[in-house]
């Protein structure tokens, strides 16, 4: 491992104990990954602000007490609680946990982070650009930044994300290297009708299916609609990251590093080719609907955080009708402010907005259990295990219509 003079001095503690710890973590990670050098990064998005016990807070306070500052622009992921709305806290968790979670978010803001508290940082202006080396922990954001932005990041776990942001460098390995970004396996869509590809639900289903088969390999998808928008790309990124651990993917003719198959695969042949069928998409939908159709207890939207265009689509789908069951949408503070006109109208229809946190926790915060409908593959995949609820998966239109009726409604046009 080659360290320059400054990094060597940091390792020896010449810039204080916090930087020394950060340097130890970065070099340790480099050794384990087999990297022989570090690469400069220009941006970080931290997962370490998500409270996982007192050690998380002690770590942040250790950095704070030694006056550590981030070397690069550093943004924060969701926290466990909302700093904006004290009523949004996980019930059933002890006070220490809730207070600790709040304190942790405050310490990171104090350390110089931009406190955006969002799992969809790519929806905010001023983020990384194509070719930038960055440090990201949140799985959907890792997948989106690599695939859609064509910035370069590995998936950085707790503490290491912070360490890299303090040093401004990361181990030069994996997805930071040209070789590490090539496609492994190919998915084709010739058996899926074009009309279906235009539906937003399609992107969630394809992402889930691809992730299940890809695991941690890099999937390449051929045949996506040229009109697939950023919300669709977000859905694919998030669903594939949660069902399989996908950290990078290519969409031929869609994502920047994949103008054609040869480029996406770096001239090599795919290790496997899968032809996706309607039956695959049906199976994905069934896997995501652990709950049966019937009377609803709640609707949960915004995993990852809702975008301005998704708020507009929800407003259209509700068509001025009030929701009958509690309907929560999680988003970032930024998008909440940006989309305030639409959000004000949605709130009049009974929709509530959650910021700073993710809705795996908020259903418990409001004491809701039972059958919950969502348009997000990621939410539908995780919530039954994490919250013990029955998840029902549907399109945004199906969710909106069901919220109005208080009962799961199915769109005949989306039959698979």
């Amino acid at each position, binding site marked *: 491992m080659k360290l320059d003079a400054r990094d060597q001095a940091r390792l020896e503690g010449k810039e204080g104990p916090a930087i020394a*710890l950060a340097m130890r*973590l970065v070099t340790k990670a480099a050794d*384990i990954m087999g990297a022989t050098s570090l690469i400069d990064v220009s941006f970080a998005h931290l997962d370490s602000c998500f409270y996982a016990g007192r050690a998380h807070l002690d770590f942040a306070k250790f950095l704070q007490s030694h006056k550590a500052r981030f070397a690069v622009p550093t943004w924060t992921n969701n926290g466990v609680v909302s700093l904006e709305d004290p009523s949004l806290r996980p019930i059933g968790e002890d006070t220490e946990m809730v207070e600790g979670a709040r304190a942790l978010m405050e310490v990171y803001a104090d350390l110089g982070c931009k406190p955006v508290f969002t799992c969809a940082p790519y929806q905010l202006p001023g983020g990384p650009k194509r070719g930038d080396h960055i440090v990201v922990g949140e799985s959907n954001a890792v997948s989106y930044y690599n695939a859609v932005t064509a910035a370069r990041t590995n998936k950085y776990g707790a503490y290491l994300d912070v360490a890299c942001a303090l040093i401004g460098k990361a181990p030069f390995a994996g997805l930071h290297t040209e070789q590490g970004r090539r496609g492994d396996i190919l998915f084709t869509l010739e058996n899926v009708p074009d009309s279906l590809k235009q539906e937003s639900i399609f992107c969630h289903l394809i992402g889930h299916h691809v992730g299940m088969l890809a695991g941690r390999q890099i999937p390449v998808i051929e045949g996506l609609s040229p009109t697939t928008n950023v919300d669709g790309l977000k859905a694919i990124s998030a669903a594939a990251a949660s069902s399989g651990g996908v950290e990078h993917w290519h969409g031929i003719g869609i994502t920047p590093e994949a103008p054609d198959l040869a480029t996406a695969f770096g001239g090599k042949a795919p290790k496997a080719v899968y032809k996706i069928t309607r039956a695959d998409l049906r199976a994905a939908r069934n896997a995501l609907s652990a709950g049966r159709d019937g009377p609803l207890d709640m609707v949960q939207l915004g995993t990852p955080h809702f975008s301005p265009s998704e708020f507009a689509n929800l407003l259209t789908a509700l068509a001025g009708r009030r929701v009958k069951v509690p309907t929560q949408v999680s988003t970032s503070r930024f998008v909440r402010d940006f989309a305030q006109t639409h959000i004000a109208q949605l709130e009049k229809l009974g929709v509530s907005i959650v910021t700073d946190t993710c809705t795996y926790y908020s259903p418990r915060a409001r004491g809701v259990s039972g059958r919950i409908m969502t348009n997000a593959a990621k939410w539908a995949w995780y919530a039954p295990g994490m919250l013990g609820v029955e998840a029902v998966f549907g399109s945004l239109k199906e969710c909106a219509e069901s919220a109005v009726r208080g009962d799961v409604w199915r769109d005949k046009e989306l039959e698979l």
Partner: protein
Amino acid sequence: MKSRILHQGAAHGPVLVLTEALSFWGAFDPREGEIIDIHHPQRGAKLKGVILVMPETRGSGTAPGGIAEALRLGTGPAAIILGKGDMNLAIGAEVAQTLYATPCPVLEVDEKTYAVITSAKHITIANDGTITVQALPNR
């Protein structure tokens, strides 16, 4: 026997072999030091003070917090030996060592060594990563 050091330290203790990968976030409760994943074959096992031997870990970006929290509370293992190296546990162990001065070496071993270790009762780990095994007597 030699090992690859992912996090350095010395330790000794009884061996606990997990037959499946464990995630230190979600599948493990640091407060009790207990495996809580209902799907894990060693569910209910307590990790306090053991030399934890497992094929690999299951990935979660929050896992370093799980191991660091267990070491803080004194419910964590004395050492971890993996068949396949893992970054998260080494990072968590390093942070815990710095904050709480709790040693917990993390080692990676090859297949042959792994097979020997899984049939051992008690293990000693030296600072240089050397593993000494007290084998189970024949029955």
